């Protein structure tokens, strides 16, 4: 388990795609989406062993390339930055028989993701009542450490959440049945076994359904500033100046506890099955082993928990918007909901043959192209919507999946801007209150209980989201549809 960085040789394939050739223990090459600046910064990180000597992102890409059963390449999307085990932005697809499943490939916030609601409101409508809307959302949507949701579940119902996901929430009156069609996997993944989720995880969950959480999670009211692809925008039901609402959150303590519980299980499995891992956090088990299957069926419970969570928050959001503007809740439709910390069985072409693979995406979004049956019928001609979160001061994007993305990166997309600076450094550089004042001056209202949390999330602590999106668009693996800007941001 050496954490010694390798000497990294990297070659340019296109201006937006780079390859680290297969070498030593690597089973496949590493491929990174980025421009010259991305790559120079990654290489500089390797040299300096910046970040207190923690494993640099590029080395994490190489470490994943050494895991048994990996297919084609260890991939990182353009928002790559150091994670734990996998780089954030990392995509690793594995053979079902020979491959492994890894906690680090999913992370502790299982199925953390973004959901976007589209409204019948325009920017001008919200500008007139912005403060009122911000206050209403902040009051109605529980956010931040220690907040609890308004659903109270009994123990039987907890298992139902884990098996039925968003469908459970709809059944309880949170949202509409038609919402389910516009959630990845229809808001419910199969192979979820609550028996493989600890009592501790369930106990932590039962008051947290319908809470936003903290850190980089947010609820944001946005307006559509620019449309790049009219056909896709039409299909998604979005137009210039329209108000959208983005919800970024995950599976809360349920997911955190599942990840934590299986860290030790998979650590023991790595030793038992003698899996060569380069970094302790990369602990994994053969997918088909009992340990691997237990983790997979537990992760699926976490995925469903997150879908239920975002479904409940959507309902609270709709209610708040209805209260302020008097519009019908059905005028606030679900555009789409995608996870970016997941592991899924998907069919992809490998060496000309369609094959079922286990695809880990850590800080990366599924991005299926037009024609895939998994994409909702209304969007199937243009491809799956990708919801890319920027920062509270900058743009966010809606992209769509492409055929090239299917071929080159297992149908995956960037998930956000990607951090460029540590939280500690951000707090030294910015003060929460000043930042809130500065953003208000730019017409963006921030609501948060934690001023230090706001400083940590300063727009300047992130990479330039416009550049990150231009890279994947330029590489042809994701396509720009629309750019949106924030008006109100509720932070945890």
């Amino acid at each position, binding site marked *: 388990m050496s954490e010694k960085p390798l000497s990294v040789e990297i070659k340019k394939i296109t201006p937006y795609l780079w390859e680290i050739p297969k070498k030593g223990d690597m089973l496949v090459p590493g491929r990174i989406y980025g421009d010259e600046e991305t790559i120079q910064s990654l290489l500089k990180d390797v040299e300096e062993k*910046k*970040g*207190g*000597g*923690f*494993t640099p992102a590029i080395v994490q890409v190489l470490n994943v390339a050494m895991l048994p059963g990996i297919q084609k390449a260890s991939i990182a999307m353009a928002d790559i*930055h*150091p*994670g*734990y*085990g996998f780089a*954030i932005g990392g995509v690793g697809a594995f053979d079902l028989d020979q491959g492994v499943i890894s906690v*680090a490939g999913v*992370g*502790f*916030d299982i199925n953390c993701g973004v959901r976007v609601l589209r409204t019948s409101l325009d920017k001008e409508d919200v500008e007139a009542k912005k403060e009122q809307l911000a206050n209403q959302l902040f009051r109605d949507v529980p956010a*931040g*450490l*220690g*907040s*609890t949701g308004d659903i109270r579940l009994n123990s039987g119902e907890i298992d139902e959440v884990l098996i039925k996901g968003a469908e459970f929430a709809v059944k309880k009156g949170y949202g509409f049945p038609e919402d389910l069609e516009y959630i990845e996997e229809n808001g419910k993944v199969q192979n979820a076994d609550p028996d493989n989720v600890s009592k*501790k995880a369930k*106990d*932590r969950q039962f*008051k*947290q359904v319908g809470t936003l*959480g*903290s*850190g980089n999670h947010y609820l944001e009211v946005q307006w559509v500033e620019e449309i790049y692809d009219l056909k896709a925008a039409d299909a998604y039901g979005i137009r210039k100046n329209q108000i959208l609402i983005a919800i970024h959150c995950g599976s809360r*303590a349920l*997911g*955190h*506890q599942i*990840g*934590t519980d299986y*860290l*030790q299980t998979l*650590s*023991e499995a790595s030793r038992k099955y003698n899996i060569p891992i380069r*970094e*302790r*956090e990369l*602990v994994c088990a053969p997918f088909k082993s009992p340990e691997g299957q237990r983790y997979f069926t537990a992760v699926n419970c976490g995925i469903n928990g997150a879908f239920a969570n975002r479904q409940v928050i959507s309902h609270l959001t709709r209610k708040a918007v209805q209260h302020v503007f008097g519009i019908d809740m059905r005028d606030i439709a679900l555009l789409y909901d995608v996870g970016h910390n997941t592991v899924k069985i998907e069919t992809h072409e490998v060496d000309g043959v369609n094959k079922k693979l286990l695809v880990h995406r850590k800080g990366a979004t599924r991005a299926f192209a037009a024609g895939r049956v998994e994409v909702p019928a209304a969007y199937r001609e243009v491809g799956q919507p990708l919801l890319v979160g920027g920062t509270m001061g900058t743009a966010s994007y809606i992209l769509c999946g492409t055929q090239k993305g299917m071929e080159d990166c297992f149908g995956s997309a960037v998930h956000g801007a990607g*951090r*460029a*600076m*540590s*939280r*500690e*450094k951000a707090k030294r550089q910015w003060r929460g209150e000043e930042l809130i004042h500065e953003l208000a001056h730019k017409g963006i209202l921030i609501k948060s*209980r*934690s001023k*230090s*949390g706001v400083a*940590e999330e300063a727009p300047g602590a992130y990479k330039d989201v416009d550049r990150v999106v231009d890279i994947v668009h330029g590489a042809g693996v994701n396509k720009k549809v629309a750019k949106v800007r924030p008006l109100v941001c509720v932070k*945890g």
Partner: protein
Amino acid sequence: MPYTYLDHEADVGIRATGSTLEEAFEQGAKAMLNVMWDISTIEERQNVSIECTAGDIPELFVEALNEILSKQGIEELAIARLRVDKITNVDGRYELKGTVFGELLNLDKHTVKTEVKAATYAGLRYEEKEGQHIVQCILDV
């Protein structure tokens, strides 16, 4: 310095030092709790015992931190401190028994900062050097 924060782009690295292993763990817990809230706003009005086991000392450190997070969440506590009562090695497995101190979380009283999702194996290290025990890991926030 009993504990320090290490720069890491996405998350928070912590490193804690103590003249005993127990003290290093206690300082590590303090580093984590201080990420979550201003611990000076928490009164030690109640305590809860914690127990965990692991195959080696570094993993025990992560287990202990994650156990604190579980207890925090389930009991809805604001926790100010961990006291490690005992770390023992039983048949090759390490066991920790300890107590956490704090009170029921009250958002009007306690200054909350950032939720810690988990302590991770990333950057995980333990060493004993010149009579000092040093533990380090990355917290997912």
